[in-house]
């Protein structure tokens, strides 16, 4: 059983190898986390998965169910962003990127846009199809706002919301596209411990909405709390993969975070 698998993924920018021969699998119903020191290439991985960057080599495979319930691998390597969204990957950004001058509701509606099936031509005049879709979309958008706890802020401008709610709205916007896989890029950045705790429960609850979550985060406590599997990157290459408790004790990981001396001190102290 697999949801998404990344095979030998590599990207070069000029001479720099940002991600080097990366392999990992995401399983359905699980939270997979991608961690590593700054500059390890985590966000670059998300950018490749969502079609912002085209990998130099390697494959990204998404498994879809066919009519009989069999798993069918679909190669989404190098697909454009709009195709990737249609196939069921949706993301948030490290530094919040909401549509700042639009209301919370409109933000959600934009997230939903690829499922709203009336075109630009029908947008130009009132017609039954447009009205039907708009009504339906609005109702659904309100539902999504309720899920992320923002139903009171539906008509507020996105930038007027407090920081924590902006994060939630961004997640809501990503959910609105009905993704199979949700990619969260540092959702806890800038939050205080209480907010982080709430967020970690919230992220867990998202597994009811999507088939799998890929999480990038710096906060180790949060990561260890909620991840089912952790993939550790350093300088673009995978150095370790496993359950939280396995990763925690891995020497290479400690070395990547603290340097060689850190390991020695750990050893001598222990």
């Amino acid at each position, binding site marked *: 059983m697999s949801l998404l698998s990344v095979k030998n993924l590599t990207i070069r920018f000029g001479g720099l190898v940002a991600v080097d021969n990366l392999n990992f699998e995401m399983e359905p119903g699980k939270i997979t986390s991608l961690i590593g020191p700054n500059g390890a290439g985590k966000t670059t991985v998300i950018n490749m998965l*969502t079609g*912002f960057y085209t990998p130099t080599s390697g494959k990204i495979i998404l498994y879809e169910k066919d009519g009989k319930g069999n798993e069918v691998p679909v190669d989404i390597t190098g697909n*454009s*962003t*709009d195709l*990737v*969204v*249609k196939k069921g990957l*949706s*993301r948030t*950004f490290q530094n919040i*990127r*909401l*549509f*700042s*001058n*639009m*209301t919370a509701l*409109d933000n959600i*509606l*934009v*997230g939903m*846009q*690829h499922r*709203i099936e*009336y075109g*630009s031509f*029908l*947008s*130009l*005049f*009132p017609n039954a199809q*447009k009205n039907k*879709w*708009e009504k339906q979309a609005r109702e659904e958008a309100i539902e999504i706002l309720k899920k992320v706890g923002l*139903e*009171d*802020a*539906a*008509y*507020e*401008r996105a930038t*007027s919301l407090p920081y924590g709610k902006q994060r939630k709205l961004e997640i809501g*916007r990503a959910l609105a*596209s009905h993704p199979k896989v949700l990619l969260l890029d540092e959702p806890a950045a800038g939050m205080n411990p209480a907010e982080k705790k709430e967020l970690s429960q919230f992220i867990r609850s998202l597994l009811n909405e999507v088939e799998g979550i890929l999480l990038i985060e710096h906060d180790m406590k949060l990561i260890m709390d909620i991840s089912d599997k952790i993939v550790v990157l350093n300088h673009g290459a995978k150095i370790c993969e496993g359950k939280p408790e396995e990763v925690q004790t891995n020497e290479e990981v400690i070395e990547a975070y603290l340097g060689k001396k850190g390991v020695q001190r750990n050893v001598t102290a222990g």
Partner: protein
Amino acid sequence: MKTILKKHLLFLIIIVVMCVAPVFTNAYQLRILISAALAMIFAMSLNLLMGIGGTVSFGHAAFYSIGAYTTAVLWYHFRTAYSTNFIPVLLVTGLAGLLLSLPMSRITGRYVTIITLSFAEIVNLIIKNWDPVTLGQMGIVGIPSVNLFGHVLKSKTEFFYLTMFFVIMTYIIMNWLVNSKLGRNLRAISNDAIAAEAMGIKIFPYKVIVFTISAVFAGIAGSLYAHLMSYVEPSTFNSNLSFQCISMVVIGGLGNFSGTMVGALFLTILPEYLRRFEFLFKYRMIAYGLVLVIVMWINHSIPGTKLKNAVTSRFNALLHRKNAEAQEA
């Protein structure tokens, strides 16, 4: 229903005042009103591109001139009526908009501005030098009044109401467009193109659409202009016309169509009013520039618009909560 009324109150007031006005005006004032109505269509079309599409265009006069010249050239060579020319005007200006949008597949941000400026210069140069078709520098003179399917609009009052019809249509269509998937996605792109891409929006087709629609409406205004003035000449459609149009949009607030109408009305009437004062006569067009600087200085739209937005958003939120409570109960 009430909220709809509230949202479009300013628009309704303008329309009612404008439509009643011909009863009180003399021929000269009526002419100014027609110019203002044309400016409204023209500026609203730019507002779609700037306020909703997020593209600062320095070359919007190009579409206006293409609309004016399409009508004028067709009349000159084939003696066709306004109503016959209408569809060709839409097609030619739409095509011009489409053409200008093509480089946008590769070009973003500030480079768009220079492309629009260059495009307008090229259009103007073509008009100036394509003598067999446009009669070059001489311009085309003697364009008759509007002929609607055989009915000739003899008086300027009739012409005025035709123009007002187009003003109303433009406003209504713009509103339909803005409150639809198309408008939402356009606003999303102009807010944050990368986030819009991440939501699965393909940016380029939207650029093509917004440029085309915007061009078509500017063309409608331009073709009416040709009939109003009864002549067209290339020098009218210079970059100053584009900048004046920007002033009208900016004064009313980007993305705010009824505001744009106020801006167009204000900036058409003000210079005419200033004509009365002999010492100001020569400098009356400074008003356009002063308005831009002052408005940018104060609040980048009519003072208080920001406040108004804040108030309406609170009001809507409240209203929504009330509705939700009512539903639950």
